[in-house]
């Protein structure tokens, strides 16, 4: 294991350095000024569709709702040129229902696990949940880190728990949710990113949020984590993926996140094996904007399957 393992106290600050908060915020503000039009916009929108983890994480989820989510994931909209999304993201109890609908396709089944969203359960319960989800056929596991331990300074424990989840995942891809809104500072986000990246495998992801708290993925949080991924890659050669989740609702936001990826990590990360969007409302807005580019006029939301509450 490399130097990142079990760094405690102030040692990590020397190892990874603090984050220049003002610099990060100024930099991400610039991302929102890029002018992306016509062909490049269409490319970006389609790319974003292919990166969506179409998510339903509600107490009222049913097998029927998951089935319609899977149909939407496989064929988001009529027309040949719109790719399927990357994955459907559900609770562990819904994995076997989702599995039935997407088997044999490019769409993966992702399951949140480890007592999502709080992570406040005994470790053996969390590990059992991961194994159960993988056993039911989950291709990807979204775990939450132990924020309580992290904030109490027990970094070694946080890292050991992630390592045990990695082992429990077996062949499944792991996404480590840092829940940035509960880490309070950019420094802590960067630190937690390195804690996770030291023990996960190439092709695994770090992820911003559960989407269950007030503050979700922002361009600035995303940037801090992308910078960490880049530094980790330059140091070790291990490519880690990134998944912002929660609060990304519009196509415009998605394009801004893609700008951040392109300008921080380069084209190699502009693929759904290395970058994902955790979202539910985003997909329909992406489709709406693609259709707008195609037809040249603004579209109504009821043509994109979120008509129920549309006015």
């Amino acid at each position, binding site marked *: 294991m490399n130097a990142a393992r079990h760094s405690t106290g102030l040692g990590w600050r020397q190892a990874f350095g603090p984050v220049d908060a003002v610099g990060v915020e100024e930099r991400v503000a610039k991302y929102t000024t890029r002018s992306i039009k016509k062909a490049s916009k269409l490319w970006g929108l389609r790319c974003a569709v292919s990166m969506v983890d179409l998510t339903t994480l509600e107490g009222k989820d049913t097998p029927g709702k998951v089935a319609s989510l899977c149909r939407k994931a496989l064929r988001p909209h009529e027309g040949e040129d719109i790719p399927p999304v990357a994955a459907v993201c559900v609770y562990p109890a819904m994995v076997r229902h989702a599995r039935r609908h997407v088997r044999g396709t490019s769409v993966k089944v992702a399951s949140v696990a480890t007592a999502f969203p709080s992570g406040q359960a005994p470790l053996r319960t969390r590990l059992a949940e991961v194994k159960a989800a993988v056993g039911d056929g989950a291709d990807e596991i979204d775990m939450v880190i132990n924020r309580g331990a992290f904030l109490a300074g027990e970094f070694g424990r946080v890292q050991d728990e992630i390592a045990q989840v990695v082992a429990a995942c077996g062949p499944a891809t792991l996404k480590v949710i840092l829940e940035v809104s509960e880490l309070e500072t950019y420094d802590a986000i960067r630190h937690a990113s390195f804690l996770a990246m030291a023990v996960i495998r190439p092709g695994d992801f770090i992820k911003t949020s559960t989407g269950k708290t007030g503050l979700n993925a922002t361009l600035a949080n995303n940037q801090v984590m992308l910078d960490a991924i880049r530094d980790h890659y330059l140091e070790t050669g291990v490519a880690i993926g990134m998944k912002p989740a929660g609060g990304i609702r519009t196509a415009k936001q998605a394009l801004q996140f893609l700008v951040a990826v392109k300008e921080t990590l380069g084209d190699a990360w502009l693929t759904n094996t290395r970058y994902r969007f955790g979202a539910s409302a985003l997909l329909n807005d992406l489709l709406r904007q693609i259709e707008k580019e195609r037809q040249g006029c*603004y579209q109504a939301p009821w043509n994109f399957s979120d008509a129920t509450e549309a*006015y």
Partner: protein
Amino acid sequence: MPRLPIIKTPKVLVGGAFIRSESGRVFPLRSGAGAAVANIPQCTRKDLRNAVELAAKAGPGWARRTPYNRGQILYRIGEMLESRVAEMTDALCWTRRGSAGRAAAAQEVSQTIDRLVHYAGWADKYEQLLGSVNPVAGPFFNFTVTEPMGVVGLIAPAEAQLLGLVSLIAPAVVSGNTVVALASEQNPYPAIVLGELLATSDVPGGVVNLLTGFQRELVPSFATHAHLRAITAVVGPDHARTLGLGAAESVKRLKVLPAGDVDFGDNAAQGLSWIRALVECKTTWHPIGA
């Protein structure tokens, strides 16, 4: 030392906030004598798009309010206008000359207040006249009720810059629609002032959205925007044709009033038919005894 007066920057009311155009463009408003008196936001199709999104967001809450409450709020707009008669008359007079122009402007403001009170009264009464219980040959209650259409686009006349605009807005919002209205190009200043008093009249943000700018830039986007359910427009023949083609493609209800044909001061420019033009009828069959 003489004091420099502070000149107000005209901004339009969209989604309950006062905005400049996203484009940053403005166009000069010229007085009757030809002098530039204000820089008006030159709104674009993206401002229209944003306004429609905000109108759609405000819609369900506005439609859920009781008709009585919508009536109160329309009446409140009238009250607020009454207290700003002088300011509104001045706004209308930017492009009108002489004492005759001023008298006409004052009369237009009074008529506008009356029109608001007229539709405030209709708020909890039109349903009795437009809805019905229908006779059917079977064991069913069959009744028809009206529902608001959704987001409605309005293109106000060049003349009657206040009365014409309010005569289009009031019958649309009284039934629970929300509107995006393009103000008169000739003198948009009354629409700027109207926005300021709407913001203080208990009208929820996003229910009335006002844009200023050029018809030649905005009419094509109004015509084709699929999220707009209906358009009422006072325009010339060229724009009427653009609207007709766009409305047919996006299947929206269109009412074109040829510019110059409607006298908004007349009583024919108000009433139930103006409300009926912007509602949908829903008919329900309900088994008797169930």
